């Protein structure tokens, strides 16, 4: 029995080392495309439709990377169908999980923007952060200088 088992696993082993290197190259290329899109996205308007489209493309590439890791590196593609199904079917819950929660979050934002004036107002007040940190840095040496003078006097 033991012997036939190992024979069976070797049969659905796949392409071996060749396959590993092929998948490595695919994963690297996908990552490089993702990063290129990330850099390209920086020049776009912050809430523009084109930026949203690029983000969508990145999510699709992410799913492709996940597929290659699970299918080839974790060998799921070379397992028998029963095992594939027992892993993949429960994960389908994520489809509803993601849809429902993101929709809920979005709806909550709309409700707050409509009925909560304080929330709406908070998200329109700009805070000058960079000057704040700069003045902090400027103030600190000044104070140190004063103290030094005092000690000299």
């Amino acid at each position: 029995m033991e012997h036939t088992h190992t024979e069976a696993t070797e049969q659905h082993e796949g392409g071996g080392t060749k396959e590993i290197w092929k998948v490595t190259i695919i994963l690297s290329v996908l990552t490089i495309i993702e990063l290129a899109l990330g850099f390209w996205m920086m020049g776009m308007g912050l809430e523009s439709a084109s930026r949203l489209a690029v983000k969508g493309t990145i999510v699709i590439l992410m799913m492709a990377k996940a597929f290659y890791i699970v299918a080839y590196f974790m060998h799921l593609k070379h397992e028998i169908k029963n095992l594939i199904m027992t892993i993949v079917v429960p994960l389908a819950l994520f489809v509803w999980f993601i849809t429902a929660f993101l929709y809920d979050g979005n709806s909550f934002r709309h409700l707050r923007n409509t009925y909560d004036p304080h929330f709406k107002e908070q998200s329109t007040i700009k805070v000058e952060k960079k000057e704040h940190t700069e003045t902090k840095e400027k103030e600190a040496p000044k104070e140190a200088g004063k103290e030094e003078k005092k000690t000299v006097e």
Partner: protein
Amino acid sequence: MSTTTTVTPTKLWSGGKSPFNVEYGKLMMWYFLMSDAFTFGAFLISYGTIRFSTNGWPNPNEVFRSFPFAPEGINAPLVFVSVMTFILIISSVTMVLAVHAGHNMDKKGVVRNLILTIIGGILFLSCQAWEWNHLHSEGAWWGHNPFLNHDGTASSTNFTNYFFTITGFHGFHVFSGVLINIIMLIMTLTDKFEKRGHYLMIEKAGLYWHFVDLVWVFVFTCFYLI
């Protein structure tokens, strides 16, 4: 013997054949990873929900733009995290090669690739430690968010809370993965698997390690790219 090889798919559950055709430990590792996937999924979906329910969010390209040994105030978004991503991908490849060497009962190959995987894991953890330390020095921590939203409005602490919780949870997985790989290395070096006649244990450790890489694909996209 001949009867087991001629079993037709319709008689799959009639006995005499393993329905999943994998050993118990590997199947249980898959189920554990599935439950872990739901834990990470819950974290990331919670992050997404909060982000969708907020009007503004910090621009990751402004937050994560530093690099070790580079002058302060350098503007290099995505560069450091790409290095971290490639380290994890390469360590995943060496892990696959270790599993593959184990199939061929090649002890030397297993040892070499396991050592490379452990080095990759430690490098990743060091990168993460540096990044956490750098963000902490900028004033970011659980409950403290020095960064502003991309439109210049005040940001909530949700941003740092989620970042540190999720990357921390992932980093802890990497840490335990490195420990598991070190145990596998010791077991290989003491000929435990050689005596057992198979290296199936390496396969289970490999599954865990690939899962850690898989989670990073999602964390990297959700926090740094989008």
